[in-house]
């Protein structure tokens, strides 16, 4: 599914870029079969999310929110790894995405604590 390199750089830059490849930092993109399975898994998880929403006993249980957050996180990670090719791409791209993502998620959690939406009881 990938294509051969189109060489227009200097020999040095080519050597540098190919060194990245040799170091295993760039890999082959997934095939159609992988994309098909990813789409199927995403669809199944979405159906499960909506299904549990309509089970009153589950909605009332303590598992409801953690289960939904877990399913959502799995979908998020699958799309980022396979459709956005972060699993196969250079580590610089991974750092550029995960760094701000960690800051963003920390901000959400911190604001939840600040506005007492999340509370840790100490006594």
């Amino acid at each position, binding site marked *: 599914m990938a294509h051969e390199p*189109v060489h227009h750089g200097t020999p040095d830059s080519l050597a540098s870029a190919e060194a990245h490849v040799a170091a295993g930092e760039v890999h082959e993109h997934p095939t159609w079969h992988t994309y*098909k399975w990813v789409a199927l898994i995403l669809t199944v998880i979405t159906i499960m999310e909506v299904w549990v929403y309509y089970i009153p006993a589950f909605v009332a249980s303590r598992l409801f*929110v953690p289960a939904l957050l877990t399913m959502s996180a799995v979908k*998020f990670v699958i799309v*980022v790894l396979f459709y956005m090719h972060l699993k196969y791409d250079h580590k610089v791209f991974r750092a*550029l995405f995960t760094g701000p993502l960690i800051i963003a998620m920390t901000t959400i959690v911190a604001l939840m604590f600040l506005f007492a939406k999340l509370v840790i009881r100490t006594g």
Partner: protein
Amino acid sequence: MSTTAVAHAHAGHPPTTTGLDHRKIAIWAFIGSECMLFASLISTYLIYKGRSVTGPFPHEWWCRATKATSAAGPIAGCPAGELFKPILNIPVTSQSTFVLLMSSLAMVLALAAVENKDKPGWAGPGWGGRLFESSKLWLLVTAILGAGFLCYQAYEFTSFVHEGLTIKTNLFGSSFFTLTGFHGAHVTAGVLWLLTLLAIDVKRGLGPRDALLVDISALYWHFVDVVWIAIFTLVYLIR
């Protein structure tokens, strides 16, 4: 072995010290900044959640006359015309979520078609293979699915307004319309981007040397998809 990054790094622009194309680094940096933008919008929604003093509410029935709310069902004794049902329409939003997920699948197929344009038959024999090899088809399908998602959102917003919820009604309305409206604006920009790529493809054809252009737009499109994955759970499903 694939050398996509190498190809991108040398496809018609000066070499870089990292061996990576600056445009791809830029789109990832942009996506990182967008993470923080949407985190602020989602935080705002979550902080205001449950703090509206007047309805309609997302998951509860509301009687305007008595100010009573109920998560269990319609409120007995509420005068006619004063009872408001839970405003969120989960079946409709589930459909729009599915449409957006499928648009991501179409987008990766468009990218694969462009990357392999110089390898006739890469997708297999017969009409099925030729179907997969058409970047125009998959770009068009992605744009149509994106536009379909926007139609669902327009329907949802319109029905909310008809049911009495506007951006000025309560804290839920303000934070909901701001969050989903920003996301819708991003989807709109993505659809326009895809249509631009489609126009280029129709005019002169997109090939492996243009793969980076499609790759960058695909990254943006998938990011819009993952943001919706978070919004769907946090706003629509969690009560």
